[in-house]
Structures are given as structure tokens and as C-alpha cells.
């Protein structure tokens, strides 16, 4: 009864179980890679769609990201989580899609942004607690998509990686080739801009939107 059962431990440890799947996929087990796809495809697609704001581009990104991941599993060292590694590939693919869109004049992630510039807050109103509960899943998705769509790609990409994908500031900076200060500055602007857009929807009924007294 006191004997240890490493195989049981491994099976119940999600990280070890995932590494085992990656190993099997690396050795040509397509079904194992299929399990990784099923686990992460929705998140990759959501991220790609939020960055590119386009369904077709998101599908292309999804396919390219998984194909490249499958093709380069040997280069996955297991030092980061598989999803972080996959995210890096998907983000690069998403940014390439954005850069290919010549009509979009705001796609540069390298755009010079004054990090010392004061953040702007124009509208202030109290929200209900859990305002999203007033809406269906589909409605809330549309509200959030519309708000994020209005952000410049440089802001929304940082926001998605930090606040939706929950990567660290350092991981985000490294992934996007930005400084830590640039990530922090862009994240603050993204958060405040989204807050303003959502305030127009989520403010408590009867609550006035006021200007910010500095």
C-alpha cells in the first residue's frame, strides 16, 4: 500500500501528461497531436481572430500554427509550456497576416509610442456588479469583440497576450520584440481604452458619465 506508483502520478499530473502527448506526437503519433489540437484549437482561434479581426485570417493562422508546431516539435524543448510555445507561433502568424493587409495603416507593432505620455481617461461611471450577466454569452461576446476591434493592433495584441492569455509581461515583451516598458505602457492604454468603451455599455442605469477631474 505504501509503494509509489509513478505511472499513476504521471497520469494525474496535467503537465507530465501533456509532455507525454508531445513526445508521442514527436514520434509520429498523429492521434496524440490531435489531442493537443482538440485541447487548444479554440483558444488559438480566438486569439488569432481577436488579433486579426478576420475569420478567414484566423482559420489560416490556426492551420499554419498547428502545422508549424507539428513540423517543428523537435525544437520544442519542454522548458516552456506547450501552449506558450504554440502561442508564440500563432502570434507570429497573426502579425504576419496583419502586416500583409496593406489597407490597414495601423498594423505596425514597432510604432513609436511615447511611453511617458499621460494616459487618457475621459469617462467615469460606476458599473453594476457582474454587468456581463445581463447579457447572453453571444451578446457579451459581440460587445467585447466590438470594443477590442476598435483598438489599434499594437494595443489589442498586448492586451490579449497579457490579460486574456495571461502571459507575463516578460513573455509578452519577448514574444513581440518589445521592451518591458513598452508592454506596460501599451497594456495600460489598452485597458483604459477598453474600459471607456465598455463603460458606455455597462454603466449603471441612471449613472451619469462624468469627465475626469485631474
Amino acid at each position, binding site marked *: 500500500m505504501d509503494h509509489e506508483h509513478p505511472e499513476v502520478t504521471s497520469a494525474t499530473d496535467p503537465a507530465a501528461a501533456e509532455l507525454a502527448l508531445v513526445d508521442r506526437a514527436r514520434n509520429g503519433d498523429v492521434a496524440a497531436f490531435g489531442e493537443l489540437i482538440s485541447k487548444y*484549437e479554440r483558444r488559438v482561434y480566438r486569439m488569432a481572430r481577436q488579433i486579426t479581426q478576420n475569420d478567414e485570417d484566423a482559420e489560416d493562422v490556426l492551420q499554419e500554427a498547428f502545422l508549424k508546431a507539428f513540423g517543428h*516539435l*523537435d525544437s520544442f524543448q519542454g522548458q516552456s509550456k506547450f501552449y506558450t510555445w504554440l502561442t508564440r507561433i500563432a502570434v507570429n502568424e497573426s502579425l504576419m497576416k496583419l502586416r500583409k493587409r496593406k489597407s490597414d495603416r495601423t498594423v505596425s507593432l514597432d510604432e513609436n509610442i511615447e511611453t511617458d505620455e499621460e494616459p487618457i481617461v475621459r469617462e*467615469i461611471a460606476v*458599473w453594476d456588479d457582474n454587468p456581463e450577466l445581463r447579457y447572453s454569452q453571444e451578446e*457579451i461576446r459581440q460587445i467585447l469583440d466590438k470594443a477590442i476591434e476598435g483598438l489599434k493592433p499594437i494595443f489589442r495584441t498586448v492586451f490579449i497576450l497579457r490579460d486574456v492569455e495571461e502571459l507575463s509581461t516578460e513573455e509578452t515583451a519577448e514574444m513581440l520584440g518589445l521592451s518591458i516598458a513598452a508592454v506596460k505602457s501599451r497594456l495600460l492604454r489598452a485597458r483604459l481604452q477598453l474600459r471607456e468603451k465598455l463603460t458606455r455599455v455597462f454603466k449603471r442605469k441612471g449613472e451619469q458619465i462624468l469627465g475626469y477631474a485631474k
Partner: protein
Amino acid sequence: MITCKDFLRELNDFLDETTDPVLRAELERHINECPNCWVICDTTKKTIQVYKGMEAQNLPEPVHERLMSMIAKKKPGCCGGGDTH
């Protein structure tokens, strides 16, 4: 003495709970006395929460099927055609 501008500048770290304890105490004192900054802080926190809580949509079935069939035709190490990043 923390001003509203100071508070906004520190908002990210305050929300991410990465400010040092002394500064955090000063920031907390400020929002307890400044209704505008309290609202900004509260609604920004809710903005992040609502995005974090957003469930990823199910993939359209044809998208999933196309992806699976592309992978099934490949073998590891023989596809991708690009950088490994």
C-alpha cells in the same frame, strides 16, 4: 502625496499587485479619498475580469475537420515550411 495622475500611472502595477507595499498603501489611501480614481480602478478591474471570463467560441465544425485532415496528411518534422520562431 499621490495625485490622480500618479495613480493612473501606477494603475497597471496596482491591479497586477506588483507595487511595493509602501506605494500600494499610498495608492489605496488615494482611491479611498478620490471617487473618480476609485471608479477608474474598479471598472478597469472589471474590464479585465470580463475579458478573462470570456469563453472561447466553439470552432465551426468544418474548420476543425479541415485542420485535422491537414495534420493527418503530415508527419512530424516534414512540414511547416517556415521558421520555428
